[in-house]
């Protein structure tokens, strides 16, 4: 799941100005994150109208990152989109760009900040789980990922700063090395941690591989 957070409303107001707006949401991640589903899009519509900003229409794309689907859906909203000077997109960084590829005549405004690829722990509580490094090595670590979950991406054991199993950088998050150690101990696989893990091959990552 791509985890997003809606930008501060006042910040959005200064980006939107007073011109007519068309609002775009997304049926997938932004819906699950409550940052760009139908409910949030309608709330945004109401909030903008309360500030006397005209909203020409709205749509929930299914999902916003699907270029061909978006083109098909947005065709039906041609008039509403044409009346707007600003397109406010409540989706992830990908969804915003896919919309920008299609709508060229209006200014596209990012309504959300995209945070990470993570887990929904419970409602409105999310935690990072993956850096999309292009070379998954979680099986070496009892199914946990130190690349994304350790703030120092340490591959050869914990830094030694954790306190009661919590990360020294943020006491709200578990030290992933504590989890790895406990899980491998349970599975009697602690010998895995004795192997020196070589530096990661970042040439396999999205840093360089941008299309598939």
């Amino acid at each position: 799941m791509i985890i997003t957070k809606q930008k501060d409303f006042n910040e959005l107001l200064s980006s939107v100005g007073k011109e007519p707006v068309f609002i775009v949401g997304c049926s997938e991640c932004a819906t699950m994150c409550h940052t760009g589903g139908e409910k949030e899009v309608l709330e945004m519509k109401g909030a903008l109208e309360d500030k006397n900003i005209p909203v020409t229409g709205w749509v929930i794309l299914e999902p916003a990152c699907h270029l061909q689907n978006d083109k098909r859906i947005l065709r039906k909203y041609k008039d509403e989109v044409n009346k707007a000077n600003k397109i406010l997109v409540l989706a992830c960084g990908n969804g915003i760009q896919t919309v920008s590829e299609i709508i060229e005549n209006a200014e596209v405004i990012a309504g959300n900040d995209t945070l990470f690829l993570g887990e929904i722990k419970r409602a409105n509580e999310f935690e990072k789980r993956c850096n999309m490094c292009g070379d998954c090595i979680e099986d070496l670590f009892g199914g946990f990922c130190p690349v994304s979950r350790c703030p120092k991406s340490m591959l050869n054991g914990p830094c030694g700063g954790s306190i009661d199993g919590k990360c020294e950088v943020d006491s709200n998050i578990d030290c992933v090395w504590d989890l790895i150690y406990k899980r491998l101990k349970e599975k009697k696989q602690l010998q895995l941690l004795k192997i020196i893990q070589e530096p990661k091959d970042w040439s396999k990552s999205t840093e360089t591989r941008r299309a598939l």
Partner: protein
Amino acid sequence: MNYRSNLERVLSKGKLAVTAEIGPPKGSDPDKITRKGEITKGCADAFNVTDNQTAVVRMSSMACSCILLKMGLEPVMQITCRDRNRIALQSDVLGASAIGIKNILCITGDHQSFGNHPESKGVYDIDSIQFIQTIKNMRGIGVFQSGDKILSGKPDIFIGAAANPFADPYEFRVDRLEKKIEAGADFIQTQSIFNVNKFNIWMDEVRSRGLDRKVHIIAGVTPLKSLKMADRMRFHIPGVDIPEHVANRMKNSGDPKREGYEIALELINDIKKIKGVHGLHITALFWEDVIPSLVRESGFLPRP
């Protein structure tokens, strides 16, 4: 035998080595470092120069090491993996070797969120163990981390690493030390010790695995300068273990600075008797003036 450095010479002869930490200044004034060098000259076999410790910007460890070299002091240059990728790290190893730096201590580094630029992006391309292994291969085989060959001059570095005998998960601490040795560490500098009992438990395990014969263990000691510093280290520095009886001595003393000094003397005296300890590393945080008397009263002078 040819030794890579003075530190290696002292350690190899089975003498208790003494190293002292010199913190680079928060500014470009070279006098700050030369003054610390003058105060501590002759008190230690090598002088450990920190690399933007606690992620606060300071004069570079390479430049400070160079200044110490010019004064005739032998530096242990610290390099962290926080601020450089593998290209820059290896480049610094070559550069350090070229200007005459013989000892490098490899550490992952304190996280940038603790420093004076919490908005910065950490690098962490490789970790300390991978960095140790990289230098070992540069030195021994003459190859870079990628496998590409070094063309002119293999860096002949005495490789150091850090160890924390007090951190969690506690059972993994000696395993991690063993990994650092396997990666290529020649000497180990421990976290500052205040809890001798816990350090002894760690050392028992180190000796039972024969690790004290594979690597030189240099035990860290920090004189506490004030009650405030004791509290800060106790509650805010991850991985530091200050037991209650030490904290109480600082709290109940009419002269905490004197008490901190006495505690350090006692710690050195206890630690130097522990089998398998090959040296003492004194980190007098911004209190370098105390090092000469601490070393003298511990019976470490003159240095061999």
